[in-house]
């Protein structure tokens, strides 16, 4: 599990300056297969329009970061990828969202089948009140794997994949809730990759963690993208520059007449370009710290 050299982005960001001081080793960015194709998507919660007219492609084996201020709809769009918004009463999606060519929101699609391919890691570590072993084995079990040896193998592989195995291998029967915040989040990542998804969505996975645990999660993300496509929402711009290949900047459109706030996608491009040469003035204001 050595780190992929060509993707490492080293940066020092000085937010008080209009330009970023960067030392970027540019990642080679030839887009791979399109995993998600989002076209003119608007998402509503009841009568409230949360995001409007988002169009963007997400590419295979890349880390795509969604940045932007609160209320800009980045989490809403993320949760649309695996239909988690279905769980919110009154949530509705207009437009087209394709996953590997298939319409995610067509009538025949089963949200459970979607989520088996497209996993999610949440902002707050949320292990089940079960043992560490049962937490990781949960996904494989609901997919019908009963064989003890096979489960043992999956649990070890997933915990190793989440860089947690060495810390917990002697206490797999302990409660998942007894772990520290960073460990619990890595347990949640292990739980997610145990079902061998295609895509891993991460909703501010490190915002509840201390800096050391955050770095551990970021290292993990760089390793995980070898095997998975990752979309990550983050409030932390340095984090976006450290882990992502592409960045989408979301902003809030305020309509003071009707007192509504709607999220919009302002700019989408390679992370280096977004942070060094933003084409939109709003993006520039945000990434240089003059706004948001």
């Amino acid at each position, binding site marked *: 599990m050595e780190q992929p050299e060509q993707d490492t982005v080293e940066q020092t960001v000085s937010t008080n300056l209009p330009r970023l001081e960067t030392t970027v080793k540019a990642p080679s960015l030839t887009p791979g297969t399109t995993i998600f194709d989002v076209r003119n998507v608007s998402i509503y919660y009841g009568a409230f329009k949360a995001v409007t007219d988002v169009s963007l492609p997400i590419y295979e084996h890349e880390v795509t970061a969604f940045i932007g201020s609160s209320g800009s709809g980045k989490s809403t769009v993320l949760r649309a990828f695996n239909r988690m918004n279905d*769980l919110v009463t009154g949530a509705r999606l207009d437009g087209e969202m394709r996953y590997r060519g298939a319409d995610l929101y067509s009538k025949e699609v089963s*949200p459970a089948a979607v989520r088996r391919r497209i996993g999610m890691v*949440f902002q707050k570590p949320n292990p*089940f009140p079960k043992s560490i072993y049962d937490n990781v084995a949960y996904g494989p079990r609901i997919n019908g794997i009963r064989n003890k040896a096979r489960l043992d193998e999956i649990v070890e592989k997933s915990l190793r994949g989440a860089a947690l195995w060495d810390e917990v291998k002697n206490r797999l029967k302990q409660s998942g*809730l007894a772990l520290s915040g960073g460990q619990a989040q890595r347990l949640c990542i292990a739980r997610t990759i145990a079902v061998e998804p295609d895509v891993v969505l991460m909703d501010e996975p490190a915002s509840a963690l201390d800096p050391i645990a955050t770095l551990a999660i970021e290292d993990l993300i760089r390793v995980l993208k070898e095997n998975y496509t990752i979309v990550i929402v983050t409030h932390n711009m340095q984090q976006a520059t450290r882990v992502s290949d592409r960045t989408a900047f979301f902003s809030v459109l305020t309509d003071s007449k009707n007192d509504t706030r709607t999220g919009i996608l302002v700019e989408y491009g390679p992370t280096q370009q977004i942070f060094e040469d933003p084409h939109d003035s709003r993006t520039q204001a945000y990434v240089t710290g003059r706004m948001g």
Partner: protein
Amino acid sequence: MSVVSDQTVDLREPTNWRRTKNRIATVVMWVAFVATLVPLILVLYTVVSKGIGAISWQFLSGSPIPPNIMPLGTGGMGPAVVGTLIITGFAALISIPLGVLGAVYINEYGGKGWLAKFIAFMADVMTGVPSIVMGLFIFTIWVLHFGYSGLAGSFALACLMLPIVIRSTYEMLLLVPNHLREASYALGATKSRVTLTVVLPAAVGGIVSGALLAVARAAGETAPLVLVILTVEATNTNLFSGANTALSTQIFVNAQSPYVGAEARAWGAALTLIVISFLLMIIARVVTARFTRYTR
């Protein structure tokens, strides 16, 4: 409250009135605490001191229950113990699964729909229905057609327990944090899977406590049973036919009687009933601890 002369900072409570209020509140709290304990201890003390003399193996298992005029030492309360256990047990068997499923529907499936709201509302209304009404209800729709039986008693008690089980289970399901459901959904679980493998296990401790509270409450109910099981003297292990008896109704019958033996039997039966409830509570604690070992 001595005056400290060369003090630079005064760290005492600033005003006397505040201190007084604090004292008053503390005293009121202690008075309330003692006032709650007094009836609790008195009830327990009275039942134990008057009932302990009656308790013997023969009292608990002997049969049949002797006529009121007979002194303590003849026969025993065996039929009533058997009756209480099978009638309450079957009532639990009916009402706990139904109640838990009902609460699961209200909280997990019904959502904000009118049916879920209606069921929740009716369950709350049923909680307030006097227990004798349940007895009358079963008497009218069951006993008049099929005769007295332990089963009729079970039905009456189940009617009584159902709203309690629904309410307590519902409260416990509400406490299950939504992020656990989301975590399960995100792994591709269907709604029934989420409910069975995450929501119910996370709430099981509270559900079991609530259900056993309902059982303990039902075991002590007298009014609905008096009307539907007839309170006989012989052991009837057949739940489904023939008149039956129970500890609570035996207390009711014996305590009304002027004879010394009957009075002692009533106290003995009361103590037996309290001990059964007490044992149920202990089981509830043990089970709850067993099921919730991963939640901390």
